[in-house]
């Protein structure tokens, strides 16, 4: 009921806004008539219309948002006096229970269903308060919209710099959008940071960073024995490193060679077909890669391994790494292709002009010139590999083995975060909080990689501008 009226109010404001736009434009035309035509006006009529519309809409909407933010707190404090002293005496918990009951009754419109007359009285009062609040909101917002709109209309003169003002509002709006993205990121980082700090209150940070045993099962009941939990993150990071390394060993050569082929040898028609196909690799859902890795690649590796007498786990780092490498080929190839193509033709001509062959030119002139860009692409691919989860969950297992043997099962940071947070959990247990600590470390690692990649790529850009 309540949210509906806010919706209604918004629609009314938007309609008003549109009307004011028309009024503003119309008024601009009539002002223009008495001032020697449109040429005498600073801005176009539609600018004046927009400015009036903005005056009508923005303050009104702002008031509405602020009102809605503070309304619950105000209503709550007003309601406090209607809650019987007996309940207050029982403490915070009972008060909030009592409030919930009343709120539910009012929200569902079933005040009569409350049997206790005291509760009924409170509920009636809450209902009244809310209705008054909504009414107040309506009146305030509509008055603001109408009054400010009229004032803005009155201010339309040939000198009013409507165009600049509209420009400024647009700029502000864009800035707002940009900052929302940034603030969200900041919020994520901070929440991860704070939860991690809570985790490090329970587990020594030194043990976490240097410990080699990962078994996050903590006791659920105090009388349980044997599962105190140990949070040594080293096996997870070595697992991540091992799988990413395998992935890069696959992705870098294949990606680079495809990029060279595409940029230097492929005919335009070939390029038009192959490039999108290659880039499609990045668009395949990772869970599909996971299935492929777990059900196709892993068994093949196991069979091959056994036929030459190696013992291969049915879930192995190799399987996950290989498939992940294929997945990130386009990160390497697409960026490398771009930078190789961006190497000026004149540089190739210079090399050909000295009697170099095509492949000499590529190896000794083009690739060195494109190298910073290529390195950037490789680093981006690496940070993608480090963050990848699904393939590893499905193909590399969950066992936190500390090993450099690609034929064994390993697990990674991201996979452990997932397992820590799936299923039922207490929100403040060390086990749950460990996920934040892992997330933080992962975030820092990929951030560093990305920053390096960006710096390298930028330096490359500067060279050719």
């Amino acid at each position, binding site marked *: 009921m309540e949210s509906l009226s806010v919706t209604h109010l918004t629609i009314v404001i938007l309609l008003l806004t549109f009307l004011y736009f028309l009024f503003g434009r119309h008024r601009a035309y009539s002002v223009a008539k008495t001032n020697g035509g449109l040429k005498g006006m600073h801005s176009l009529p539609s600018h004046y219309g927009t400015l009036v519309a903005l005056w009508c809409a923005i303050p009104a909407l702002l008031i509405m948002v602020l009102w809605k933010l503070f309304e619950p707190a105000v209503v709550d404090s007003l309601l406090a006096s209607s809650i019987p002293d007996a309940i207050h005496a029982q403490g915070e918990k009972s008060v909030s229970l009592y409030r919930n009951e009343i709120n539910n009754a009012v929200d569902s419109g079933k005040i009569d269903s409350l049997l206790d007359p005291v509760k009924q009285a409170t509920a009636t009062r809450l209902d009244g308060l809310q209705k008054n609040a909504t009414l107040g909101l309506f009146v305030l917002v509509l008055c603001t919209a109408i009054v400010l709109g009229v004032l803005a209309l009155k201010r339309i003169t040939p000198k009013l710099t409507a165009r600049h003002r509209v420009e400024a509002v647009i700029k502000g709006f864009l800035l707002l959008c940009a900052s929302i993205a940034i603030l969200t990121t900041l919020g994520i980082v901070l929440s991860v940071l704070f939860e991690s700090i809570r985790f490090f209150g329970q587990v020594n940070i030194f043990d976490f960073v240097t410990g080699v045993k990962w078994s996050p099962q903590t006791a659920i009941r105090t009388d349980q024995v044997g599962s105190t939990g140990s949070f040594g993150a080293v096996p997870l990071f070595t697992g991540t490193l091992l799988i990413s390394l395998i992935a890069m060993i696959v992705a870098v050569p294949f990606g680079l060679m495809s990029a060279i082929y595409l940029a230097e040898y492929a005919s335009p028609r070939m390029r038009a077909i192959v490039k999108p196909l290659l880039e499609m690799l990045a668009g395949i859902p990772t869970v599909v890669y996971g299935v492929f890795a777990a059900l196709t690649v892993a068994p093949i590796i196991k069979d091959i391994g056994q036929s030459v007498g190696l013992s291969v786990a049915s879930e192995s780092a190799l399987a996950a790494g290989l498939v992940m490498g294929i997945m990130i080929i386009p990160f390497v190839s697409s960026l490398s292709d771009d930078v190789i193509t961006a190497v000026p033709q004149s540089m190739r*001509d*210079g*090399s*050909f002009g000295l*009697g170099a062959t095509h492949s000499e030119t590529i190896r000794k*002139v083009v690739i*060195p010139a494109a190298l910073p860009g290529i390195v950037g692409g490789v680093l981006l691919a690496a940070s993608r590999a480090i963050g990848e989860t699904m393939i590893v969950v499905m193909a590399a297992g969950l066992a936190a083995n500390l090993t450099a043997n690609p034929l064994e099962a390993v697990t990674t940071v991201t996979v452990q975060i997932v397992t820590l947070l799936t299923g039922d959990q207490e929100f403040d247990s060390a086990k749950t909080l460990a996920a934040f600590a892992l997330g933080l470390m992962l975030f820092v690692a990929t951030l560093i990689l990305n920053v390096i990649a960006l710096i390298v790529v930028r330096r490359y850009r500067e*060279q050719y501008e």
Partner: protein
Amino acid sequence: MSDAAKEAFDALTETVGRVTVDDPKMQAENVDVFYAEKQAIYDVTLDVAKNEVVAMIGPSGCGKSTFLRCLNRMNDTIPSCKVSGNITLEGESLYSSAMDPVMLRARVGMVFQKPNPFAKSIYDNVAYGPKIHGLANNRAELDDIVESSLHRAGLFDEVKDRLNAPGTSLSGGQQQRLCIARTIAVSPEVILMDEPCSALDPIATARIEELIDELRENYAIAIVTHSMQQAARVSQRTAYFHLGKLVEVGETKTIFTNPSHELTENYITGRFG
């Protein structure tokens, strides 16, 4: 083009002046060049003599670069480009199957319009050619080649303290001299230059022109230029191109003081181009 000039051009079937020389380094005979369907060069015959600078002038788009690029088969890198006719270097045909275009370009070097140093150090820019052709047996020999090439390009004194700085850190004129040094380093027999000074300021230009004059002692040089003054200053023979045809060839002095063909005269006197 005036009507009279147009008539003169249409009537043009044979180049005015002597296109051959007594002691040719390179000879081009009846060369036609097409970019896909579009013909860019019509039946051009021209010799490049030893120890001489031949300048190619003409309005832009008349095919000077195209013709120059035939002389070391740089046009091979443009897929749509087809060359016919006969071009020889010391009597060997350039477009015969026995000729390796890669080796040819080591013998007929090229300096481009815009300085195009590699993304390498000054030293490595010059050492690049000798390295890929195996001209040096050891580091000391390579050092020698680099130093003498830089010397002959008149750049050594300016860069001797920073041979490891990137080639791109030099000024435009220095970069162009670096490119010349790079070309000299593979000991070519002929040097082709396509408007080598068009991106440079007058002082750097004067420096390069001096250099060209010195290089003439050891190399045959063909230079394309849009500046008639430059052609007059550096060349011994001048060839005037117009819309893909070679209109007139002669002693540079004669061409600039007493041109025979109407089109050449129009161009020299600045009536168009």
